[in-house]
């Protein structure tokens, strides 16, 4: 289990990289150094009316200089507030949280799918850097692309857009089928319908499939039991068929959970 840190990080750079999508680089003391792909941080609002932390995936983490990148979509008031911050502003964060993707499931000679849908794409950036073996990166967008160039640097990128403006028209599975791709291991993050479809597809094809789940969170560290998902077997910690997304997750083996 990795150490978690509560820090006041400094914003190094914030830029808009798409419609309502922002990329923020933060200077951390310890969090970037401890982060693994697929983990997330809690970002705290400075407005006292918004108490709960916003969970945001780690997009990139540079252990050497302590810099950490998050990429997020303005979804409501909290993320809207974050989007207004500028260079040198301070931001309270807690992390790294959760388990992250299991890198050890891949090795040279094996093929992986890294599948990101919409705002589930950011964690694929750090994952693509650290994962061994052949990386086929399948990205699903509504229309506008983001982070595509970052991902092209560490694997072969396949794109699906809902409106067909780029790549395959349709979703990530349509792109996989169109290119007749296969893999030994799947790593995925994205909206629930995408994860549900991938789970069914992977289990039918008997491919090992790791899904990053989303749920509303309060503590972010496993204490409040807000963020559970349903599990196939009785969980060791909860003693019921529930697992904490913030602690045992957010990444789960598809066969262990219900999506």
């Amino acid at each position, binding site marked *: 289990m990795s*150490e*978690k840190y*509560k820090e006041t990080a400094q914003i190094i750079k914030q830029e808009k990289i798409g419609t309502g999508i922002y990329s923020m680089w933060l200077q951390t003391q310890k969090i970037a150094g401890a982060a693994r792909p697929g983990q997330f941080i809690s970002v*705290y609002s400075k407005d*006292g*009316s*918004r*108490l*709960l*932390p916003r969970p945001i995936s780690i997009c990139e983490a540079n252990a050497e200089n302590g810099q950490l990148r998050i990429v997020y979509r303005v979804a409501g008031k909290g993320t809207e507030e974050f989007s207004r911050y500028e260079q040198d502003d301070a931001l309270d964060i*807690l992390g790294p949280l959760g388990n992250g993707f299991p890198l050890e499931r891949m090795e040279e000679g094996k093929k992986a799918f890294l599948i990101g849908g919409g705002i589930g794409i950011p964690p694929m950036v750090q994952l693509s850097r650290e994962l061994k073996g052949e990386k086929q990166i399948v990205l699903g967008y509504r229309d506008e692309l983001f982070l595509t160039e970052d991902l092209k640097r560490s694997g072969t990128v396949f794109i699906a857009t809902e409106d067909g403006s780029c790549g395959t028209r349709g979703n990530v599975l349509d792109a996989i089928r169109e290119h007749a791709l296969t893999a030994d291991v799947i790593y995925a993050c994205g909206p629930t319908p995408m994860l549900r479809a991938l789970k069914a597809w992977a289990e039918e094809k008997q491919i090992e499939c790791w899904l990053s789940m989303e*749920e*509303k*969170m*309060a*503590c*972010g*560290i*496993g*204490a*409040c*039991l*807000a*963020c*559970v*998902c349903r599990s196939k077997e009785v969980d060791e*910690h*909860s*003693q*019921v*068929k*529930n697992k904490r997304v913030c*602690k045992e997750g957010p990444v789960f083996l598809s066969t262990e959970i219900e999506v």
Partner: protein
Amino acid sequence: MMLNGESKMQTRKASGYMEISTKVTIAGVELKNPVMTASGTFGSGMEYSEFVDLNRLGAVVTKGVANVPWPGNPTPRIAETCGGMMNAIGLQNPGIDTFVRRDLPFLQNYDTKVIVNVCGKVERLAEEPVDLLEINISCPNVKEGGIAFGQNPKAVETITAEIKKRAKQPVIMKLSPNVTDITETARAAEAGGADALSLINTLTGMKIDVHRRTFALANKTGGVSGPAIKPIAVRMVYQTAQAVSLPIIGMGGIACAQDALEFILAGATAVSVGTANFHNPMTTLEVIEGIEDYMRRYQVSDIRELIGCVK
């Protein structure tokens, strides 16, 4: 170096450095300070121990535990509200056997008092290292048939007396704020033999997602907590302190020392920090330090002088 040390001593004296006592007693159990955690917001302390030295806390109050594991409610279980939140966790818990085997030994490693929040049989804890029991009668599922008996004074008295008969440790009854007159249930708990009271539990609320045209919580309703409910909680603690002579553990929106002091001045012997832990995991420690600073600033040598001194 010597000089430096001496001058430091002198400034401390000059600024009124004094010995203070933050000790309080609840039902014969002495706490090193009045600051504890609110049930359900702190697990059994394991997760927060990465951020908080549990030795510093007056007590750890654990998540409500039942006789057998409970799966709790479907998600979403929480929603943010302005200055607070709503929850309908549904008392998910691993059951008393796992709790006794795993969580109590963990808490024994720390020099803090252990208060177990129970919604089941208390006999099971008789021989366990537990200092106090907190009975959650504000929870709808305590008894089969489930009337909300935390709201009915007669039922509160009966259940308190029943639990007192079976419990080995002193009993804190945790009152529901979802009543017209909190002093009625407080008096009922006192009549039933309670050793202390804790209040308030969450206020029942509802939030609607206008975009999805549905309830924000799968359970439709949930308990509202956090700073938004603090004035209601302070008022209820004050009223209860006027009505009964039992020690009171006050809670509801405490996020800093000043908040905690409001409760103490209104009549609480101790306080619990709940929702604020989610915003800042170190809140409990900051509250403790802030209370100490306040005592030095106002030359209060014993915290007990402050309890209920606003009348």
